[in-house]
């Protein structure tokens, strides 16, 4: 049969000037370009970076020591940062002080704005002493007030600054996500890789395990396992215990991605070529196969961070995960569980807002990465 295309293909050399940069770009450049087009994902990535920055430098960036309590300031509502004093604009932001009154009959405390007290918000103020990462001693906080109080998200039942607690809580809640996927990554890549590369009975068994883990409800399992952690463990040990528990179930999604990719790549010609050239198995896997789907793995990892964060938050919220004195978003939300308290002090729910934003951002970034991960699909 005579077919036109065959005659056409034999000489094609003309590449248009505009396409040249695309044709020589590396895989990672293409992924970056495609990702940058996804505006929501880029904004989310910036937000995530800011979140982690706060988590890393929590001591310096939080205005107070999160454990610093003062019974004079229990359940104090948030103070707003203002620029207008009685209608007059002023360049230096400030907060008004608050005074409390207790009802003689109900013993309920109410807080009122006291406009006679004005505290300027300043940068690099001296406040509670801390040791950054246990190395650098200092009393300088990025922002705060020199006298009076500045509780931008209010205080909790012991008069502790909610904002500082949220920032420190982020350190645990956000790192659970990263540490969790690090462990799931190792399990997922090994299980998925073995399953996809060898196939056969191995594949069948691992597939059944994955199917099983995905078809039973995880929360009861997590709850039961976290109770099984020895009560004598320290906060740090419990923390790692919880992370391991979460990862034991979280690796399945990644394993599926890796397996699927291995399955399809095994059939690719360049893998066959490498095998025919005498490369040994591990060289074929690590040199030729893994790099071709690193981008997919990163996307899949990003998308599994939210379930880790949610898992920790839910467990701690119920009281089965981390517990006081550890600070995580879930532990903070545990304080908001008593509805009567919550009705009077709704700001206790604010850690939840950070949970939602963090998860939203990870989902957006993950979606953007997944779309970008296949840079050759359509440009």
């Amino acid at each position, binding site marked *: 049969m005579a077919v036109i295309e065959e005659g056409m293909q034999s000489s094609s050399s003309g590449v248009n000037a505009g396409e040249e940069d695309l044709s020589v770009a590396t895989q990672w450049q293409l992924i970056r370009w495609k990702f940058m087009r996804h505006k929501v994902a880029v904004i989310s990535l910036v937000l995530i970076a800011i979140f982690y920055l706060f988590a890393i430098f929590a001591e310096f960036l939080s205005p107070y020591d999160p454990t610093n309590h003062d019974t004079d300031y229990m359940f104090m509502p948030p103070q707003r940062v203002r620029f207008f004093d009685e209608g007059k604009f002023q360049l230096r932001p400030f907060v008004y002080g608050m005074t409390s009154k207790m009802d003689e009959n109900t013993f309920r405390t109410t807080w009122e704005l006291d406009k006679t007290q004005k505290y300027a918000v300043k940068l690099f103020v001296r406040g509670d002493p801390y040791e950054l990462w246990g190395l650098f001693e200092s009393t300088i906080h990025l922002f705060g007030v020199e006298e009076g109080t500045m509780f931008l998200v209010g205080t909790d039942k012991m008069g502790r600054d909610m904002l500082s607690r949220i920032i420190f809580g982020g350190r645990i809640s956000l790192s659970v996500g990263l540490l969790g996927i690090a462990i799931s990554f190792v399990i997922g890549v090994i299980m998925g890789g073995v399953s996809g590369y060898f196939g056969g009975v191995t594949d069948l068994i691992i597939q*059944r395990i994955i199917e*099983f883990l*995905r*078809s*039973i*409800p*995880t*929360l*009861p*399992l997590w*709850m*039961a*396992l976290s*109770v*099984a952690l*020895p009560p004598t463990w320290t906060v740090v040990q419990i923390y790692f215990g919880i992370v391991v528990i979460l990862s034991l179930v979280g690796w399945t999604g990644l394993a599926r991605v890796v397996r699927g990719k291995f399955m399809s790549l095994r059939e690719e010609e360049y893998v066959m070529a490498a095998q025919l050239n005498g490369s040994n198995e591990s060289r074929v896997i690590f040199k030729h196969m893994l790099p071709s789907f690193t981008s997919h793995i990163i996307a899949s990892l990003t998308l599994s961070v*939210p379930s880790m964060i*949610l898992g920790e*938050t*839910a467990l701690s*919220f*119920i*009281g*089965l995960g981390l517990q006081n004195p550890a600070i995580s978003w879930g532990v903070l*939300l545990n304080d*908001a*569980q008593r*509805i*009567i308290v*919550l*009705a009077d002090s*709704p700001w206790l*729910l604010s850690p*939840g807002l950070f*949970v*939602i*934003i963090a*998860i*939203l951002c990870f*989902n*957006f970034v993950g979606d953007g990465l997944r779309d970008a991960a296949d840079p050759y699909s359509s440009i």
Partner: protein
Amino acid sequence: MWSFILRRILLMVPTLLVVSVISFAIIEAPPGDYMDSYVNALLQQQEAVDPAEIESLRKRYGLDAPTYVRYFRWLGNIMQGNLGRSLEWNQPVTKLIADRLPWSLAISVASFFLAYALAIPIGFYSATRQYSIGDYVFTLIGFIGLATPNFLLALLILWYYFVATGNVAVGLFSNEYLVAPWSFAKFIDLLKHLWLPALVVGTAGTAGLIRVMRANLLDELERPYVMVARSKGLSETKLLFKYPFRIAMNPVASTIGWTLPTLVNGELLASLVLGLPTIAPLFVGALLSQDMFLAGSVVMVLSTLTLVGTLLSDIVLAWLDPRIRGAI
């Protein structure tokens, strides 16, 4: 079709065995057995402990036999519908669970139907009007729904409910029906209360389903058979429902497999927050007091029910798609 169902049921047997092993492991997991915590509790109350009596109790509850013996004994009991005895409540576990399970099931089933009833039309709308304002709004709501933990949503709703009514728990019945015998009015009253927890539990599932439905339908709309159907002169509505919608429903139906576990997770959290008399408070109480027979049984029952639900969904799926019947 029947052979498919039979094969599928046979495949479930090993899975159920694994579930039983895990449940038993949970029962055995805490260091020491219930007797130890019992002794501790007695000691704390500064009561006298008679070691001989403790040993006889151990024997009576069979706590002294080797692990595998206890497992098979436990498994044998389960086969006869006997899940053991809750040492905390001093009641059969079967009875404790049976009292509360119907409420958990009612909430899960209601949220399941709510999720699909919302997700399918919304996903359909979003896909057929891609990039319209409605599509963007639903997509945004979907993203927020996915990112909001169930318990947080429950907490928000409970807060609103408390401010509005002054009640601290949502409950499943109005006061006048609480102890009343079953009647149609009581059932209606239940439905009136059920939708709220169902909505809380269903949000995350709904959001995920909308995305699946939208993406699948968008994929299917591009397929050649849609253009073929159009070239035959079918009207757009008839065509959409007969061809792409029908096929896009298959992945949606297959999502039941992962929707059920999330519903069970969600139901646990929502019931805890909303103060509903379901299996959730029972389970958490059992965990906190190390009443592991009860806790392990709850894990066993919830997992088994989820697996049965998945089985049912697979059967529906095979009925929907003739290609699947041959596979597996």
